[in-house]
């Protein structure tokens, strides 16, 4: 029977996880070699949701291409837009008004919290606990409501544009963000009691999917994945953009390198994001929300690179301009791609259950990997 199903010469079982599988959160395809339940080899196959966003961007103007990037990592669409706008602004040397900068940072952090909320729920669901998903969505829904009110959309907002933000804040914005912070703080303990402290959860997470510091660097991991292994890689600290140099927050670092460390990094990052929002929400300066720019943006000839910290790690936007209204070539360095490449190394020798736990803490968004 095994020969019909496909086995290797050593009698190991080949099994396909995905492209349609509940644990891959999309169309990721993993070809695994199993010895019993122990994973010998994992090979990710990509390309099921490739939409050639980079190529599409070459035919769009500098105002238009920003919106496409919302569709890459749809959970941190603000941050993607932010990175693209920053790259264009850097190239054209546009001075963004202070108010727009603060708004952008608040939006980024709200997006980060929303993304981590969804990750938390989805990861708990991967481990078999369905209820946390609904609890995390309760808070996430508050954020999307705030977004809807100000930006006009819930997921792909396209709110940040080159030169500032598209519209001014909604009058209720500050009030609602403050009430969200209060709600989040009151519910945060539940997260720890329900999931973090749970003995089953801890046993599932600790010592699983270990990624050493050296491996994290050599695989090019960024974001919480790297910080869980003790690699300091927070772009907001290392290469501060906008007002991040002016706010107080800590880069969350854990040294364990296992799934639990990555989990704790993300959980604590939510608190740091709350801290940043708290500092800024009462101090949004008055003034313009958008710099005066021409209707048609023309980048000078040259190559421009800008990096931002998305909820998953470092997003790099590399623009090659020939001086026209559209980019000559665009390359995105997406965090999920590098993080996924470490997966095979991390799960080698562990069980199928561990694969799910590890993949959960990598927080993969497949459109971000495939683009």
């Amino acid at each position, binding site marked *: 029977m095994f020969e019909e199903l496909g086995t290797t010469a050593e009698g190991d079982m080949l099994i396909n996880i995905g492209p349609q599988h509940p644990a891959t959160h999309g169309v990721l395809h993993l070809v695994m070699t199993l010895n019993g339940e122990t994973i010998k080899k994992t090979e990710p196959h990509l390309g099921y949701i490739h939409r050639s966003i980079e190529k599409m961007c070459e035919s*769009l103007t500098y*105002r*238009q*291409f920003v*919106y*496409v990037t919302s569709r890459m990592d749809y959970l941190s669409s603000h941050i993607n837009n932010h990175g693209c706008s920053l790259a264009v602004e850097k190239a054209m040397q546009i001075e963004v008004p202070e108010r727009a900068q603060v708004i952008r940072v608040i939006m980024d952090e709200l997006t980060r919290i929303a993304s981590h909320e969804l990750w938390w729920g989805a990861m708990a669901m991967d481990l078999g606990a369905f*209820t946390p998903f609904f609890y995390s969505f*309760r808070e996430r*829904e508050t954020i999307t*409501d705030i977004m*809807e*009110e*100000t*930006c*006009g*959309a819930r997921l*792909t907002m*396209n709110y940040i*544009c080159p030169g500032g933000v*598209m*519209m001014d804040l*909604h009058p209720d914005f500050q009030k609602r963000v403050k009430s969200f912070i209060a709600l989040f703080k009151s519910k945060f303990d*539940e997260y720890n*009691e*329900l*999931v973090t*402290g*749970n*003995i*089953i959860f*801890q046993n599932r997470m600790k010592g699983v999917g270990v990624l050493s510091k050296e491996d994290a660097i050599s695989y090019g991991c960024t974001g919480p994945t790297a910080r869980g292994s003790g690699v300091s890689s927070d772009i907001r600290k290392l290469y501060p953009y906008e007002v991040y140099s002016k706010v107080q927050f800590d880069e969350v670092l854990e040294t364990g390198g296992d799934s639990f460390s990555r989990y704790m990094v993300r959980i604590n990052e939510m608190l740091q994001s709350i801290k940043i929002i708290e500092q800024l929400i009462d101090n949004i300066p008055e003034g313009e929300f958008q710099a005066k720019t021409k*209707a048609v943006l023309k980048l000078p000839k040259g190559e421009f690179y800008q990096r931002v910290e998305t909820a998953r790690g470092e997003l790099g936007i590399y623009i090659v301009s020939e001086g026209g209204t559209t980019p000559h070539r665009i390359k995105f360095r997406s965090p999920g791609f590098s993080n996924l490449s470490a997966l095979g190394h991390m799960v080698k020798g562990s069980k199928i259950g561990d694969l799910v736990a590890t993949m959960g803490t990598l927080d993969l968004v497949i459109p971000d990997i495939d683009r």
Partner: protein
Amino acid sequence: MFIIDYIKDIFKGLKSLLTGMKITGYYFTHHKEIITEQYPDNRATLKMADRFRGEVVMIHDEDNEHACTGCSACELACPNGTIKIINKFDVNAEGKKKKAIDTFIYHLELCTMCNLCIVACPTDTIKMEPNFEHSVYDRSKLTKVLNRPGSKIKAGVE
């Protein structure tokens, strides 16, 4: 001592499980915490945010006049060819030919609600409406003409 650690482990584990059960038990008994919306039932009271981007509409006033000059800035701003503008030439009172809009075609099925056309519009004649119930049985119904029949440009808009 091994035995004491063993028993301590068990009690710690049980305690962590019971704290989890306390939370789910709390929500089980407190039905007022339920947050789901009964969507088709609450249509009457459902209020979308003012800025919610559902579809592009053209503003007409009570005299069936709009402010669209047919400049096709929105058509240029649109990243995926959602808007097509067909112009005609009106003859105005002084006998001069003047460019004016004939049909403003809007492909809702292509629209990504990116708001770029609204920003680009120099006369603020189009806006986003918070209408999100777009499902139809025939795809061609999603191709809309935004300027109403018989409408004409407002006086004084250039």
